[in-house]
């Protein structure tokens, strides 16, 4: 299993932390893009979408930590 396979598995797992059909995956995808490109793209990160507070969803902080761009 390669690095890329695991990165994709991690990305698809993001679907588990959001409402089906939402665009919440765009921010983690941008973070992965930042990781795999040799030069970080000159664009802000997509907006952070909070993890739904419902049974079955992972609980997380109300506000994102780390990068705020």
């Amino acid at each position, binding site marked *: 299993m*390669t*690095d*890329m*396979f695991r*990165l*994709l*598995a991690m*990305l*698809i*797992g*993001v*679907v*588990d932390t*959001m409402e*089906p*059909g*939402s*665009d*919440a*995956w*765009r921010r983690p*995808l941008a973070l*992965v*893009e930042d*990781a*795999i*490109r*040799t*030069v970080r793209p000159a664009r802000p990160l997509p907006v952070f979408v909070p993890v739904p507070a419902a049974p*079955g969803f992972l609980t997380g902080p109300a506000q994102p930590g780390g990068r705020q761009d």
Partner: protein
Amino acid sequence: MLAASSVATLLGMSLAVARKPLRADAARNVDKIITAARQCFREFGPEVPLQTIATTAGVGPATLFRNFADKEELVLAALNRQLRLTVDPVMDGALADMDAAAGLLRVLEALMAAASDDANLLCAVAGRRELLTGITGSFMESVSVLLARGQGQEACARTSP
């Protein structure tokens, strides 16, 4: 919750659910059932009964079971169709793009959009690794090609493809 097996299902889906050619009326029924399945999974979640899917498709349960042995087979067929419709064309474009890294990112966007749209389908096959038997990863092979090209163009870091 998505399990690792459903993730691998999605990543390896391109060659899944190979079917022999169907007569036109049978093909229409399959199309109606798959369309109804996507709608029902979205509306009712992964536990939706097959009877509900058959009713929504306007076919009898016998027609559904003639084409799909169980819910897992139907889910795999639905995921497979969506990947073929939404991700494969993007992959074809990416493989023809001079900018491999940009193409790779477009593929990942298309994959994530498909996974998000059909999250309940993915959830329905979580935890069943035997579904992956016989599925090969042409999708991952193409991703590896794009990544290697991107690395050759010094646009992608040294992640193993």
